[in-house]
């Protein structure tokens, strides 16, 4: 099996801008495919975490209602959740809601509590899956942009932008924002993926007491609304917005949405402050008309599985999506036999910040680089950065998502040059070839004394 990725690293597309929520299964109608997969996916995360060790905690989700009218929508969400099979979902009165989430505004009248909801570091999840896959025989090709495909001798022959070829009997189209273009490339179904932009704002770890649970407003029609999310690594995320646009590269943030997000978020959690913003970003949800997932055997092209329109709750549903794709492949005639030596677990990554000083000695005895902090804000050691580089994450963003170095309050102000030096040392790359996220995003443009 081969995994073909257009970007220079996995998770660099839609996944990297994910809100990092494991949804609890009450937001979507029981008639939708996504509601079923959301519930099934949610249940898989404890087992996956045990195998793969990514940061994940079931902190629970609350929906905060501010009026009697909003409570009616809460009733509806509750009924939907119960019908979907959401675990232990309950309607809560004002006092219980405030006890469950003291950060909420005193103006709440009540809401919903879904204890099975959680928070996850999305890129760590994707990296862990990729490592587990690679350890079990999947060939990973990054920076490999599929541009052409044709079928010959019962196999698909795919050509990359760089002219490389890859042949396979079956193909799964999980191309996110470009699933429509990939489908067309295979002569399969015609559909259009519409990007729905979501802007998010991150607050410092030191911001005035982050909430302890994911806080949702009562949802509006087109999205789940602006949330206040305590991330699994201790920052607070506000967002996302939901703006439909045509451009699949438009990841701009806007001052208008900054204002909107803060207005909505501070209605729910009054103590949040713009002073604590450390960064912002925008992600694009790949949406299809009707807003449901499309996971099916192509009817127009042979041996192709379509996995399109995977927007929220796509991350939550992903384990269930995988099971469904497996079933589709088998129903389409692909014989799959579980490997006898399949080992899903991957070795745990050691992180200096997870150890008390007296526990560090052992780690430091093994590798003194664990005692050399490269990123002061997130407490990331040289050993962790080097591990990321040796695993192939050689861009600044890749190292950031893998280790969190550069993700804290100074946003790389102090550690960027240190990381650049480590990449140069480990790979032999000159500094001017080191990039933020791939070719074209070089960090420096030359040396002093270079001749023009």
């Amino acid at each position, binding site marked *: 099996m081969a995994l073909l990725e257009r970007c220079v690293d996995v998770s660099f597309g839609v996944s990297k801008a994910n809100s990092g929520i494991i949804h609890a299964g009450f937001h979507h109608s029981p008639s939708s495919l996504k509601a079923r997969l959301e519930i099934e996916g949610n249940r898989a995360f404890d087992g996956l975490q045990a195998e793969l060790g990514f940061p994940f905690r079931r902190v629970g989700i609350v929906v905060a209602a501010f009026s009697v009218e909003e409570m009616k929508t809460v009733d509806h969400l509750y009924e939907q959740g119960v019908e979907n099979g959401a675990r232990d979902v309950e309607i809560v009165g004002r006092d219980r809601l405030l006890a469950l989430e003291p950060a909420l505004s005193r103006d709440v009248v009540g809401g919903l509590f879904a204890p099975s909801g959680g928070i996850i570091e999305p890129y760590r999840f994707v990296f862990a899956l990729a490592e587990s896959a690679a350890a079990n025989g999947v060939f990973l090709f990054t920076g490999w942009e599929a541009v052409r495909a044709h079928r010959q001798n019962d196999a698909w022959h795919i050509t990359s932008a760089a002219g490389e070829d890859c042949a396979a009997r079956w193909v799964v189209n999980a191309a996110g924002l470009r699933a429509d273009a990939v489908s067309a490339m295979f002569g399969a179904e015609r559909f259009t993926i519409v990007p729905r932009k979501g802007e998010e704002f991150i607050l410092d770890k030191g911001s005035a007491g982050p909430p302890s649970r994911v806080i949702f407003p009562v949802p509006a029609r087109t999205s789940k609304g602006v949330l206040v999310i305590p991330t699994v690594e201790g920052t607070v995320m506000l967002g996302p917005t939901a703006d439909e646009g045509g451009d699949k590269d438009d990841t701009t943030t806007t001052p208008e949405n900054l204002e909107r997000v803060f207005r909505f978020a501070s209605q729910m959690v009054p103590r949040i402050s713009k002073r604590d913003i450390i960064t912002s970003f925008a992600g694009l949800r790949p949406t299809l008309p009707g807003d449901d997932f499309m996971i099916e055997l192509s009817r127009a092209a042979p041996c192709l599985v379509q996995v399109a329109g995977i927007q929220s709750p796509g991350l939550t549903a992903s384990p269930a999506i995988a099971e469904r794709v497996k079933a589709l492949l088998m129903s389409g005639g692909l014989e799959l036999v579980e490997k006898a030596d399949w080992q899903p677990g991957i070795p745990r990554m050691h992180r200096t910040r997870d150890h008390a000083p007296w526990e560090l000695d052992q780690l430091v005895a093994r590798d003194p680089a664990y005692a050399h902090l490269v990123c002061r804000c997130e407490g990331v050691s040289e050993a962790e950065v080097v591990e990321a580089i040796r695993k192939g994450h050689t861009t600044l963003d890749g190292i950031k998502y893998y280790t969190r170095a550069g993700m804290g309050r100074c946003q790389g102000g*102090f550690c960027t040059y240190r990381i650049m030096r480590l990449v140069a040392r480990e790979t032999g790359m000159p500094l001017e070839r080191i990039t933020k996220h791939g070719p074209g995003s070089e960090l*420096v443009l030359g040396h002093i004394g270079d001749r023009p």
Partner: protein
Amino acid sequence: MIRRTIDAVVVGGGSAGLAAALRLREAGATVAMVEREPFLGGILLQCIHSGFGLQEFGEDLTGPEYAERFIRPALNAGIEMYLDATVTEIGEDATGRSVTALSRAVGVVRFSARAVVLAMGCRERNRGNVAIAGTRPAGVLTAGLAQRLVNIEGCVPGKNVVIVGSGDIGLILARRLTLVGCTVRAVVEIQSYPSGSVRNIAQCLNDYSIPLHLGHVVTRIEGRDRVEAVRVAPLQDGRPLTGREFRIPCDTVLLSVGLIPENELSRAAGVPINEGTAGPWVDADMMTGARGIFACGNVLHVHDLVDFVTEEARRCADRAAAYLKGDPREEMIPVKAGANVRSIVPNACAPGRRNVLYLRSLVVKNDALLELSAGGEKLRTKRLAHVQPSEMIRFGLEAGAIQNINSGTALEVALR
């Protein structure tokens, strides 16, 4: 884990830490210094321009030269040096304070110290802090990082540069980048007046014909992989006038938009923070609200001149040495910011000693009057030719000047 017992730990080996550690050694204390970088000198090492030391040495020195005046004596003073080492925690133990640090060379080390001097300096405000909209390509970096890349790593961060913020760091960088062959397209300043000194506007911008857009903001950064342009608009009533927005093509955006004292370690140690400075609250002994923990330099409040950092660090070390000797502490009078004053350091005065107050104005004003009062009674005034928020005001108060204030009354400092 290595354990060390010592009189004082100085956290940070930059200008403040070096001056404080030397002074503590001179007073006979045993001192350990923990510095994150492999070299002493802190941010001075990348400030290869001149203008340092005029107050302290009566000489015009570069940053590294200024640092050298302290590094050599410090290396010969019997200070226990931990370089390339990071303090991860300041706590309490039976002796007083425990300080935990990590380094490649020694692994984990825990000090038992009676006094701690915080001298960690500050960090730069970044793009997120000032919420500049647009895309997130490569080529957006803080001025200090760019200065580091150019002056120490020998790299050119970009070819066509726009600098946001007209503080001295931004201005000096504009000149430096021009000298290494970059084109500085513009300096964009949100205020209607430059933040940096008149001298730097002349010598760093005007001499090189670099345009300065006062009262303008960058509304948007463009470019997917690398910066392609910024959009700039004039401000009217605090809002960008989008109708008069213009585009400056560039490949690099450098942010010189302010500094924040870096106090995460202090906060975690329970040190109360003064919202006005973002540094610790300190009394006339430069002691923070946590007993035995002192602070000086940019971790306490952002200075304009390193010479004042040195002065403050020495005073801090003198008081820390007195504390180590067990000298009785004088009763102090609280100091608070009055009209038009953003912040004041220290937050208490000792009436029996000479006191030096540092304050920052909230207003731009010529011929201002600095006014000291207590309980509504005017104690002293001083004429100041010009005040503005970006220039720190230093004010010395001789011993006995505030002797007759009733206990419980605060000394208020105002600008009129």
